[in-house]
Every structure is written in C-alpha cells, then in structure tokens.
C-alpha cells in the first residue's frame, strides 16, 4: 500500500502519547507481584544490612558506621569460623556428591526390588534435621552409641571416646551426619537427569565402539553436567548456611573447633546479644556466597551452550 507523507506524519503524532501509556501499562499489571517481592525479599534484606551499621545493647542501638566491619578484621574467632565453614562445606559436598552420583547410577540400573530401595534411600531427606542431629550425636556417644566401639575395634581410634569431644576430630561428626542427610538430594536430582538420557544414545555409542567407561564420560557426563553445576551450587549455599546439625551436635564446640560462620552468627546474635555484629558477619557470608554463585553460573553457561 502507499500513503502520502502527510498521512504518515498525522498518524505518528497521537502514537507518541499512546507509547508512554503503553510503557507504563505492563508495569501496572506486574505491580502486585513487584510489591510483594519488594516487601518480602528486599525490605528484610535492606533492614538486615542496615543492622550491620549499628551497635545494639540492652535497651538502645546506635549508628556506628563501618565499626562492626572494622571489628571483624581483628576477630580471630571469625577467621577460625571461616576456615571451619570452608572445611565443613567442601568435605560435606564432596562426599554427598560422589556418593549421591554413585547411588543414582546404581538406582538407574534395573534390579529386583528397586522401587523399595529407592524409597528407603530417600528417607534421610525426610527426617527433620534436629532429629538426625540428635541421633548422630547419640551414635557418636560411647555410652549409648556403637560407633566409637566400632572405630576402636577397627583400630581407627586408640580408645572408644567421643569423636565430638576432641577438637581435632569434632568436625567429622556433623560432616558425617550431613553426608548421610544430603546424599538423597544428589541421588534424586541426578537420577532424574540420568532418566532423561535417551537409551538410544547409549546404544549408538555402544555400536560406535565406546567402552562402558567411555559411554559414561562421553555421553552420560555431558548430559549431567548442567544438572551437576546447578545442584552443586544450590547445595554449597545450603550447606554453608546450614547450622542445625552442628548446633544440635556440638554447639560449635569444643573450643570453637566446629564453629562455622552461621553458628557464629547465631551465637553473636542470641548469646552475645550483638545483633549488629551478627548482621555484619551475615553480610560477609552473603557476599562470599553471591561471588561463588556468580562464578558457578558463568561455568554453567559455557556447559549449557553444548546441550
């Protein structure tokens, strides 16, 4: 069709007004969700961060600027807690992931009674963390639990004492409990990812001459990679901020040997009653985890490109 130039100009003018209305309109439709997100997510976050610039005592609080952050720099206990957090997270994650992957691969193979085994394997996930913490604390207790005696019988310990009461070994208690607690998560998610691999791909690889190990590394792993990255990221954040098991089993002791950052935050806020300092430490943990997540998402992006 053809138009005269003047016609187009005439048609263009009222459109400008309509455009600005059109620009606002979608935001109006979105506003209920946006308001909800701001109120539920952003407001508490901002208030929490604002606490880290204040000092709280019994009946008052005062603004101290970066004072709490300066105090963190010279806090040796915090340094120890950071090291403990790293150790707790890496060890828990490492064993949870590899044992979970092994379990998922086993459960992907057909065998008699697989349904029952699957259900049983996923049980730890359903047990409240306080209950599993208590159970494991008792298992490690030489008076009522069998574990110290088994470790002694295997020659792994000189005498059947409580692992949790020795600062050198105490961290292993919550780590073992956490491994037990977290394997099902990896097993479930990785099993779901394994099930999504078409069987014809494995058959094609078998005909192409791939050995079982090559089929695993060249077909299965590339398929699992995006899932692995995202689950490892989620799990790292959850483990790093997960204080229940440690608090129930050791309360951060003995001598601060199992005190991770979340435990230290809890102790600062509710035992030392220094909410400002606790908030500052929490902000530090938040920043560290966001940096970690950004790094991992970047890695995932390169992996997902291929699938």
């Amino acid at each position, binding site marked *: 069709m053809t138009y005269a130039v003047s016609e187009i100009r005439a048609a263009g003018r009222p459109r400008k007004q309509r455009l600005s209305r059109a620009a606002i309109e979608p935001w109006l439709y979105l506003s209920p969700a946006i308001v909800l997100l701001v109120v539920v997510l952003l407001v508490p976050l901002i208030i929490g961060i604002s606490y880290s610039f204040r000092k709280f005592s019994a009946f008052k609080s005062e603004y101290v600027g970066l004072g709490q952050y300066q105090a963190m720099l010279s806090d040796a206990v915090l340094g120890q807690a950071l090291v403990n957090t790293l150790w707790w997270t890496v060890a828990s994650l490492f064993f949870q992931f590899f044992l979970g992957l092994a379990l998922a691969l086993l459960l992907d193979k057909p065998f008699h009674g697989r349904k029952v085994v699957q259900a049983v394997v996923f049980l730890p996930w359903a047990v409240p963390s306080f209950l599993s913490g208590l159970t494991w604390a008792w298992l490690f207790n030489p008076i009522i639990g069998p574990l110290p005696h088994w470790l002694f019988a295997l020659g792994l310990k000189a005498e059947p004492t409580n692992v949790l009461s020795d600062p050198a070994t105490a961290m292993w208690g919550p780590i073992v409990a956490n491994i037990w607690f977290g394997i099902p998560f990896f097993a479930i998610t990785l099993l779901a990812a394994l099930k999504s691999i*078409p069987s*014809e*791909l494995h*058959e*094609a*690889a*078998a*005909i*192409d*001459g*791939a050995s079982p190990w*090559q089929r695993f590394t*060249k*077909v299965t792993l*590339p*398929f699992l990679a995006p899932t692995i990255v995202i689950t490892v990221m989620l799990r790292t954040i959850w483990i790093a901020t997960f204080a229940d098991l440690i608090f129930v089993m050791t309360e951060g002791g003995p001598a601060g040997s199992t005190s991770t950052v979340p435990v230290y935050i809890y102790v600062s806020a509710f035992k030392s009653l220094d909410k400002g300092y606790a908030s500052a430490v929490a902000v530090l943990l938040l920043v560290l985890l966001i940096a970690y997540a950004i790094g991992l998402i970047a890695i995932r992006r390169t992996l997902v490109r*291929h*699938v």
Partner: protein
Amino acid sequence: MASVTLQHVEKDYGSLRILHGVDLEIADGEFVVLVGPSGCGKSTLLRMIAGLEEVTGGEIRIGERLVNDVAPKDRDIAMVFQSYALYPHMDVSSNMGFSLMLKKAEKTTIDGRVGAAAKRLGLDSYLGRLPRQLSGGQRQRVAMGRAIVRDPKVFLFDEPLSNLDAKLRVHMRAEIKALHQQLKTTSVYVTHDQVEAMTMADRIVVMHDGYVQQVGHPLELYDRPVNTFVAGFIGSPGMNFLPAKVAKGGKVDAVLADGQKLRLPDGLPLSDGDALTIGLRPEHIRLADDGALKAEVEVVEPLGLSTQFYVRLANQQICVFVMGRSDVKPGDIIHLAADPTSLHLFDPAAGSRIG
C-alpha cells in the same frame, strides 16, 4: 561387505515369545526391508542383528562369522536409529567421527573420511553445527553420515524416516536408495510403511506376530501374496476380500454372499461347495456396461489422475480404482467386471493361497 544369515532365530521376553524361528539369507550387497505392523518383531530382529538384544535361540552370522555373542562394536555394523540418536553436545563432525575417534584413528584420517561423507550427503557447510541447530532432514543425514564414516559391512536402519514429514520422507527415501546403489553395502531396513518397502527393497520380508509371512521381490509379493495377511498388507489402496462359495457348472464360478456370480480361473483344485476368500485388487476391477456384478456407489474420491470408488458389493464395502475421471455419483448403481486371472483365491480358514 558381507552377507547376513539368520538360522531359526528366536527371541523370548520372559515367557512371551516375540520371534518364532526366523530363517533368512541376506546376500552380500542386498537391500532387504523388514516390514510389518507394529509389534510384529521386525525391530527386535534388527536389534538382534545389531547385538543390542540377546539371542534366545538360533544363530546369526555376518559373513561366515557367528555373532550371537559378539559385542555390537565388534560386529562391524552401523545403525541409523528412528530418533537419529545424535550426541547433542557434539557438533556434526564430532558426531560423524566419534567411532573413528574411539578407535584412535589419526586426525587426518578422521577429517578425510568425515569430509568425504559430509560431501556425499551435502553436509559440508554444517560440520561445525550442533544437532539442535539442524532441521529434521539434516539430522537424518548426519545419522546416515555417522554410519557411512565407519565403512561397515552391514547398514541397519530402524524406521529412519518415521520422524520426517511426508514430503521429506519421499525425498530421503530416494536418497537412501541412491546411496545404496553407490556404496553397495548390505542393508537391512525396518519400516511399517509398505510404500517405503516397495520402493526401496531388493527383497521384502513381511512379518506378522513374530513369524515371517513371505520373502520376495516387491512385485512378487504384490502379484502372488502367499496369504491374506501379505495380500492385505502390500498395496495401497489395499486388496478387497470377498467371501464366496464355489459353484461348478460348465465353468467354475464363485457365488458371493448376495448370490451374484464371479467367474473363476480354470485348473484350480476346487470342488463344488468349497468356501473361498476372493482377493481383488482395486485396480483390477473394471467399470463395465453390463458386467456380472452390480454394486451401489457410496463414496467417490476424485484424485485428478485417477478416481477411487467405494461401492457396496455383496453387503461389503470394496474399493475400485480406475484411471481418469468419472461422472458416477454416490447412489448410482454400477456394473463391475474382473478378469478371472487377476483374482487371488485364499482358503478362508487358513488364509493361505489357493493355486
């Protein structure tokens, strides 16, 4: 290249028998199509040749070698799957060269063979793409390329064209056939589509319920089907079947359900009163001015080149196929005639061919 020999091959799943003793000799360089309805065991048979399913009984040989217990990768075969089974995280050239890479072939060898196969299939400009960046037809070609690169003794195709649209299917059909004529590699091709079977095969193996029904050249199956199953399965539109009884007078006639008579060929072992199933291909029925058979037209399908009628004859709807166009309308009574030599006669109980 090699022949493929199946000797009384059986397959059970638990107590369920899927294949009941299949015997088949596939010559070197031959293109054999296994065809049948779903569940007939054709794919299972192919997967047994590939080594993806265990053999319950009997022997499978590729060339002279017994391969019952040989791993798929050592059978020197290549397979094209219905879903193509391309590795989604590898580009086209890695997909095609994967088997050579696993064999630790030289990079120059791999590149040379992948390049040659890609050129043959018109994939040169797609070598760096991932499977998901390709169209269905291109993926299908990559799957073929992956098979060609291996230079196997036998190609196995498991319904490779089922996921393509009708037009592309016809195109790829011709391409696969042309490829076979160039490479002359022994090929076993599974399909449920009898048109694919007819157009591509040197020989067709018709299967039903785990039994081989008939093996033969496409036109041999069309012209002399051994039973009602093959007769009904091969050909489109399908053969019409009419129950009848033999009436012997001076000449041999068949009496249809409504009493109309149809002349039968001479010299067949028929006696008066025998029950029969008459098979009539739609194109073997003529419109006559005053033939022996009267029928009422129910549906007319004008196709331009030809016309198909569905008419009611002896209380049955049968299909009539005539070339050209026609003024006949639904509701008209028309006269039909058929040459006695064009009739196929079957035993109604066993379904087997008479004569």
